[in-house]
């Protein structure tokens, strides 16, 4: 059995282990289960004092950032559909693995 040691007043997770802890003042012991949940998939929720699913990351295409750039927009507005497709293809090749970013990540590749 895996156990969680939780700060009683806040629900903050203090410790995880498979040795039954002693109950101490200010701490609550929560039985987790026979195995520790995959922390890559789940995270501790202090309110419910359980492991909940992690939110799935949202990815954004950096090519979709470009029309919002005022300098790029000047060029973009003058291109035909075929030219826009060609430019996107070339930029996608240039960006490679860095084409996609997380929605909470800035568009510039390097700071």
């Amino acid at each position: 059995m895996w156990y969680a040691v939780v700060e009683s007043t806040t629900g903050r997770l203090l410790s995880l282990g498979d040795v039954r802890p002693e109950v101490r003042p200010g701490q609550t012991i929560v039985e987790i289960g026979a195995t520790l949940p995959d922390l890559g998939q789940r995270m501790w929720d202090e309110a419910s004092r359980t492991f909940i699913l992690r939110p799935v990351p949202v990815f954004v295409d950096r090519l979709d950032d470009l029309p919002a750039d005022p300098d790029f927009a000047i060029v973009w507005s003058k291109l035909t559909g075929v030219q826009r497709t060609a430019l996107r293809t070339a930029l996608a090749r240039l960006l490679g693995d860095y084409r996609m970013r997380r929605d909470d990540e800035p568009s510039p590749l390097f700071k």
Partner: protein
Amino acid sequence: MPDWGVGGGDGTAWESSALTTATGIQAIASATVNVKGPWVTLLAATARDGDWLLVNMVSPGLASASYLIDIAIGAAGAEMVVIPNILFATGTAFSNGAQITMPMTIPAGSRISARLQCSVASGTFKFVALVGSASWSGYPAIGGPATDYGANTATSKGALIDTGATINVKGAWTQLSAATTSEASWLIVCLGTNSQPIAGSIFVSFDIGVGGAGVEQVLVSHICGILNSSVDVVFPCMVVIPVALPRGVRLVARASSNTTTAADRLFTVVVIGV
């Protein structure tokens, strides 16, 4: 003040892998994910008794990959793992290097070899092994293989450490071992990501501790690292620390970071003691 002994500091003779290029000797993981690949010779036969083992490692720049690396001594087919499950984890396809140094007794004539498993089929890594014969007479020679704690060979990752819901406040202690199986006086602390791209720049600070749940005591505190979305490997990703780790104690780790983003606050840890 370190005890280097009388006559200390008068030199160390090193021998290293024979290289045909500057890129190191490549080992390859199994074509089956999370399965160790074949042993690759790093040093065919050491010329003299060794007291130190130093391994330089270079990753190939494979995206979203986690590796567990074994170092062994012994003839082909009779390898004995002396450093098990060295963790290296990365999110983006960016090549990186790492190094470990261990005080370890290695008899003359020993073959040094390496193998690895990876969360990506046929992942590769490059190595150079150096064996040092120290004349620091006061420095303890450590024999016997190392023991790893926290490695998950089913995923090629370390123990997952969540830095928690509050920025710059240490998260929960996570158990690496309910009871350590051998004493150690030298630790390699391997720090990794959860092998996924992260956003922005992240600073992270790890603690290694011992003790029962709820009453853990810090053994080594604030092992700090940094990573960012372009090179999301924790740097430094391997830290060697001379510290006494008793046998039979519960070994734990925890960390804090400057992010609470659920996908970014996950790290992995393997502690190797000898």
